[in-house]
């Protein structure tokens, strides 16, 4: 045997004073589907962590070296029993197993050492990088900051997606819902937003937390790989509660994510948290509630399903300077069925959040990606979460697109249209093309400003519609090479000064000369 172990054991024996320890216990009456009914535990508290004594009745040699302790969470207090969710493998619990109360509310580890790591809903690492050395424990359930400790949202959080940053701006501390059918690009927007944070200076860069709820592990692995390849994992934490995890862990994962984020917010840092997705969390909570025999309500969800999401999302906020000025920006994701935003969970979360980005399957299928329906997408924080440079160039886009959508129906009669209408339609079509973006290629804000400035100057009016995207990409690349100082100035100051405008106009003229092949109409 290793001599250090022997020494440790010797020290333990020498320093050990045997004493009888008294515990508050209960006994498992019934177990199944991740939920246990426990007799006793009369002093149990709602939300308290309990520990299952798996060593009871086993001989010492069988009890030694047992896998990590199995915990549970008290969710129901009944007349002479409690019901709890098992936070692990239910098969390890037997009828008659003794359960001890810990007197503690569930908490998860947080701290700098979690950056770049993948953890489960209990904060335990699930990657191969070993345990955390000195984490700070944060309570999973915590009251959201009160009104006097909050500050209004005014600092932009760039997503790198032109359509969002220009028309549906998101501020630090805001809660913006991403909603749409499956396969419409909801996760892509969230991941692009994480990738965009790489453009932020390190001291202002938000810590990103991606909470995967009920997702396929292959999808989470792919996302982690993408974030790693693009250097975004260094400021990102992934909380993973896959589809194969017990419902209790899927229900807890968003709370664990926000608890991890609160550590950084309390320290004065900005945090971006993505809940992918809350529909699956609601389903997990419904499953748990039905197993706990709570009365079902609409769509069989329990009566407190609204409170589940409101108490989670209220924890996203921007703190006042006295509280350190940190923030948590939440991007919850909701999956709709056949675009029905009027279903129970979507309407709940729409009413809780400060706006929504609606992704439309028909737009997606038409090739308009990101498939954002600008008409019903909104950010209630509005232009106060935009830089002055972005405000200066983005003002008229939403109106132009709305007019274009109105006129779109007349496009089939194109030959009968008057010149002004035809021009407006052509301009709208070009704007739609400019707003298209590939996934994984978010655009820094200064480049978005340059692009929209050029569009406002009708720079792409002579480019065939089919080549607008290509021309836009070439123009951005050209401006980045030849007029980098103008872009750097916009990034640094957040303003579009007259010098910057002149420089961008000059870039446009030079580009036109160098790439005359684009301008053929």
């Amino acid at each position, binding site marked *: 045997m290793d001599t250090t172990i022997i020494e*440790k054991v010797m020290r333990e024996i020498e320093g050990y004073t045997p004493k009888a*320890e008294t*515990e*508050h216990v209960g006994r498992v009456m019934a177990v199944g589907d991740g939920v246990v009914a426990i007799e006793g535990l009369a002093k149990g508290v709602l939300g308290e962590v309990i520990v299952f004594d798996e060593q009871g009745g086993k001989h*010492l040699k069988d009890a030694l070296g047992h896998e990590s302790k199995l915990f549970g969470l008290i969710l129901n207090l009944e007349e002479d029993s409690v019901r709890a969710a098992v936070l692990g493998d239910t098969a390890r619990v037997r009828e008659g197993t003794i359960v001890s109360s810990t007197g503690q509310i569930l908490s998860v580890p947080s701290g700098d050492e979690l950056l770049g790591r993948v953890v489960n809903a209990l904060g335990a690492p699930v990657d191969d990088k070993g345990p955390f050395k000195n984490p700070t424990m944060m309570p999973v359930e915590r009251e959201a900051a009160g009104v006097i400790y909050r500050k209004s949202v005014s600092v932009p959080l760039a997503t790198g997606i032109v359509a969002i940053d220009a028309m549906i701006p998101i501020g630090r501390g805001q809660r913006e819902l991403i909603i749409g059918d499956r396969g419409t690009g909801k996760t892509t927007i969230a991941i692009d937003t994480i990738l965009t944070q790489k453009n932020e200076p390190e001291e202002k860069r938000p810590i990103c937390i991606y909470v995967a709820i009920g997702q396929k592990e292959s999808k989470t692995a792919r996302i982690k790989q993408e974030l790693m390849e693009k250097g975004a994992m260094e400021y990102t934490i992934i909380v993973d509660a896959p589809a194969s995890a017990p419902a209790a862990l899927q229900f807890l994962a968003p709370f664990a994510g926000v608890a991890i984020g609160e550590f950084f917010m309390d320290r004065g840092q900005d945090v971006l948290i993505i809940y992918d997705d809350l529909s699956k969390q609601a389903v997990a909570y419904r499953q748990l509630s039905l197993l706990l025999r709570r009365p079902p309500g609409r769509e069989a969800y329990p009566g407190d399903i609204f409170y589940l999401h409101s108490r989670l999302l209220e924890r996203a906020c921007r703190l006042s300077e006295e509280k350190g000025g940190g923030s948590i920006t939440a991007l919850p994701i909701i999956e709709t069925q056949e675009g029905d935003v009027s279903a129970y969970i979507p309407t709940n979360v729409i009413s809780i959040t400060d706006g929504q980005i609606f992704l439309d399957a028909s737009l997606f299928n038409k090739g308009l990606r990101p498939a954002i329906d600008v008409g019903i997408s909104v950010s209630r924080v509005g232009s106060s979460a935009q830089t002055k440079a972005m405000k200066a160039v983005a003002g008229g886009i939403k109106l132009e697109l709305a007019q274009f959508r109105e006129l779109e129906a007349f496009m089939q009669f194109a030959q009968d249209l008057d010149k002004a209408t035809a021009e407006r339609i052509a301009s709208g079509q070009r704007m739609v093309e400019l707003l298209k973006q590939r996934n994984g290629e978010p655009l820094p804000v200064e480049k978005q400003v340059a692009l929209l400035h050029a569009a406002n100057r009708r720079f792409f009016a002579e480019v065939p519609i089919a080549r607008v995207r290509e021309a836009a990409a070439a123009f951005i690349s050209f401006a980045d090479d030849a007029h980098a100082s103008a872009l750097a100035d916009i990034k640094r100051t957040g303003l579009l000064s007259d010098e910057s405008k002149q420089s961008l106009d000059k870039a446009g003229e030079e580009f036109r000369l160098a790439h005359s092949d684009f301008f053929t109409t």
Partner: protein
Amino acid sequence: MEQKYAHALRKLAEGGIAPQDAVAAVARALEARGRGGLLSRVGKAFARLAVRAARRKRKTLIVARESDAAAARAASGFAEAETIIDDSLIGGWRLEEGDTLTDASYKKYLLDMYNRATRA
């Protein structure tokens, strides 16, 4: 459902109502709701409640071997506790009384020591 009625029956009995009157009251309540057939299941649920209540009041002293019982009774201060033999404790004693468990077994000491030595 039957558990709720069993709880009601227990409350009636604990409230000082004679057992036959309590059962009659519950039977009447069930009949009035068209659930008369539930009475036998209520009876079984009540029996389970009674067993649990009795178990909660019971004091059990667990020792590794018969010869340890006297010393354990003296150490725990529960001379009247029912004694059970469980050789997995190795030595010492363990007292269960309702929701309280006092563990002074060697098994617990050794497991604690092992956990501290291997996890430190």
